[in-house]
């Protein structure tokens, strides 16, 4: 499989003189096509800056970046990159351009020059993918937070991108909305899309193929969720609390009880304890 994203030695700073704090500092990472990568770190660690690079919302200042095999340093590629890599933002209320759902979903395809007669099919398909078929004529205002966020996802899907970037998309939702949205993201990955999920909620990353830990603009480590979450030292350095099963495993070990393996999910915890 091809690389979906390849970042090499990215550096980014928001201060104009270029001498301020670096939001990204010598940041290198490769995301494979079809992969589900979770990027974790606490607020202000550089996650969002990275996300905005992947969608060409921020220009590369230093280093190299290719997205969907397109060089992000070439400004002629900006529109193509935005079409291939779609981004969903944190606040569902700040992403809609129309209060009619169908109108909003047509926004992306129209921008990317999709023929007008093709758009209704795109809209239907996008709504079906997020489990909200038949909502074309409804208003965005009467939806729950989770539904709004799924419509925002559909709005991005209507442009048919290969790569989907989710920037803290669940942090403003209630547990039900969070479950819905995470379920949708999981389905998109299962259908072959490259998913990059940015979060500070570690539980959301348990199902990812790989997890990248960011701290102070640097990539601290990248590996499978198990490798990352069971490394107590790494967890401490990133200021993250491991998932409950991992905490149980670690704390039991401190009390002199060693489980046969380190569980990540509830089911695994059950298995580890009851074997």
């Amino acid at each position, binding site marked *: 499989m091809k690389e979906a994203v390849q970042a090499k030695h990215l550096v980014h700073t928001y201060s104009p003189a270029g001498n301020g704090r670096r939001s990204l500092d010598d940041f290198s990472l490769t995301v494979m096509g079809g992969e589900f990568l979770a990027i974790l770190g*606490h*607020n*202000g660690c550089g996650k969002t800056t990275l996300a905005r690079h992947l969608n060409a919302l921020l220009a590369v200042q230093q280093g190299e970046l290719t997205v969907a095999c397109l060089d992000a340093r070439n400004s002629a590629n900006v529109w193509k990159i935005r079409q291939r890599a779609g981004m969903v933002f944190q606040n569902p209320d700040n992403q809609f351009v129309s209060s009619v759902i169908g109108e909003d979903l047509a926004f992306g395809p129209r921008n990317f020059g999709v023929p007008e007669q093709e758009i209704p099919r795109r809209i239907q398909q996008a709504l079906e993918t997020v489990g909200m078929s038949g909502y074309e004529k409804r208003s965005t205002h009467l939806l*729950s*937070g989770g539904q709004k966020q799924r419509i925002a996802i559909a709005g991005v899907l209507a442009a048919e991108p290969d790569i989907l970037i989710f920037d803290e998309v669940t*942090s*403003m939702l*209630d*547990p*039900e*909305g969070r479950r819905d949205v995470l379920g949708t993201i999981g389905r998109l990955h299962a259908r072959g899309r490259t998913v990059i999920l940015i979060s*500070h909620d570690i539980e959301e990353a348990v199902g990812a193929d790989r997890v990248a830990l960011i701290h102070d603009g640097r990539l601290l480590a990248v590996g499978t969720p198990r490798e990352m979450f069971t490394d107590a030292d790494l967890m401490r350095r990133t*200021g*993250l*609390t491991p998932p*409950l*099963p991992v*905490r*149980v495993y670690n*704390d*039991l070990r401190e*009390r002199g*009880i060693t489980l046969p393996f380190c569980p990540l999910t*509830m*089911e695994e*915890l*059950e298995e580890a*304890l*009851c074997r």
Partner: protein
Amino acid sequence: MSVELRNVSCVYAPGTPYETRAVTELSLTIRDGEFAGVMGKTGCGKSTMIQLIAGLMRPSGGQILLDGQDINGKNFDRDGLRRRVGVVFQFPEIQLFETTVKRDVAFGLRHFGWTEEEKESSVREALERMGFSYEAVKDKSPLGFSGGEKRRLAVAGVLAARPELLILDEPLAGLDPLGREALLTLLGELNRDGTTILMVSHDADTLAEYADRIILLKDGRLFRDGPAAEVFADYDALKDNGIGVCRVREAAEALRRRGWEIPAGTVRYGQLLDEIAGRWRQ
């Protein structure tokens, strides 16, 4: 400060197609000094309940008593209510607007007739309560802080009035683990020093860990009320009603189904660990 709701109902937009009963015949008591958690699905009436208690909405029926006095009664001191009850709304940091932290935190004190010294000492205490050094932050712009810090500044603005009851609506939403931890620790200390706390949250694990008791609302009515161990014990009833249970309780339930003798009231992490370690040794 004690809070008592007596048969409180609240209808929104009566007489229009939007008419909704936000709260129906709600009766409950929160004792002075308690840390009470409020849970329920979106739209269950949580927000209405806290606005009723804070006197920001009037009930369509029933009474709300603070320290035994009806807040909608004729002779009730509404200005006093504003001082004695502090409310931290969702994402309170969007209200920060003054040029300096000191002015922002002091915003609510203008109508109390306090002297400058009283105001200053209150602002200082509120900021220190929220983990800031008064001298270091007082002249800074509140907009220059990080997300978690802004949240604590906004809470300090509410604490400056020295409320006896502090109501918080989803105070942890959007905070990262470090920000949550910091705020929760400070709220715990505040409660230990005598402030009654009423906290609305979706985070069952946090409430199980910190709150003395859980008030669970469903469709505007009281669904469950009691200590977390009691409320979360009834696992199936909560699941059937689509109410999230804490992760610790889920783990306990999984093990109970495997035949482990773990009490149904296992809701705190330390408890779970003790139970598991105890069984394992046997």
